[in-house]
């Protein structure tokens, strides 16, 4: 074990799998209003991809590629989008977190009743909230994992 890295086999496989894991996480987040899953679950998948890279390459190599400030900022942006969309419901309609996008061209298509394959352009504010929560969970969990990995070598 030199420098916290694992063997060349583990590193190669981790590099090969990483984009697929990230794509699957984006799929789970984007289809949160159609299939099981959503922002939290997809964000956890992407954060586990970051954990895999940290385990394979060691945190010193990842430190140069991911900045804590950027992750912290992305997490705050996700939280801000969530709160802003929730409060727009108060302004546009009657109640907090009202689904004001139903019927509009943006994510507003109403699917037919009953079981169907689903329309991606539906769901009202749900896709926006899913993306906001996904951004928040990706950035937040990755930041926590990075900071915990780096806390070990504090002299």
């Amino acid at each position, binding site marked *: 074990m030199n420098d916290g890295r694992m063997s060349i086999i583990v590193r190669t496989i981790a590099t090969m799998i990483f984009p697929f894991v990230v794509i699957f996480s984006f799929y789970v987040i984007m289809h949160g209003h159609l299939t099981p899953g959503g922002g939290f679950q997809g964000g956890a998948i992407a954060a586990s991809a970051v954990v895999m890279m940290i385990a394979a390459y060691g945190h010193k190599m990842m430190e140069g590629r991911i900045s804590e400030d950027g992750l912290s900022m992305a997490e705050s942006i996700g939280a801000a989008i969530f709160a802003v969309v929730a409060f727009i419901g108060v302004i546009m309609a009657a109640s907090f977190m009202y689904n004001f996008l139903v019927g509009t061209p943006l994510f507003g298509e109403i699917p037919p009743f009953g079981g169907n394959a689903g329309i991606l352009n539906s769901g*009202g504010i*749900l896709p926006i909230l899913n993306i906001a929560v996904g951004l*928040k969970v990706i950035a937040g969990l990755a930041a926590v994992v990075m*900071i915990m990995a*780096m806390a070990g070598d504090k002299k």
Partner: protein
Amino acid sequence: MKAKAIVFVIFVAFIIYAAVKIHPFGDVKKSNMDDYIIMHSQNETAANNVVTSVVFDYRGYDTLGEATVLFTAIAGSLITLRREKNE
């Protein structure tokens, strides 16, 4: 030691009693809200996934609290474990 064993036996008996007395799966006493959400969620929220429409729309306030809990936990761990930049 004896007291611990007695407590353990009582606890296991309670668990078994609860498992026997639990109401059967799918047999809901009052299903008004279930029926309303199943019948209306696709028209009201335009989403196929009823679970997501409950989590983010009907009970969106809970999700905001959940996100706040996550935000607070991450902020706390970042503050506690952060390294000083200028050392």
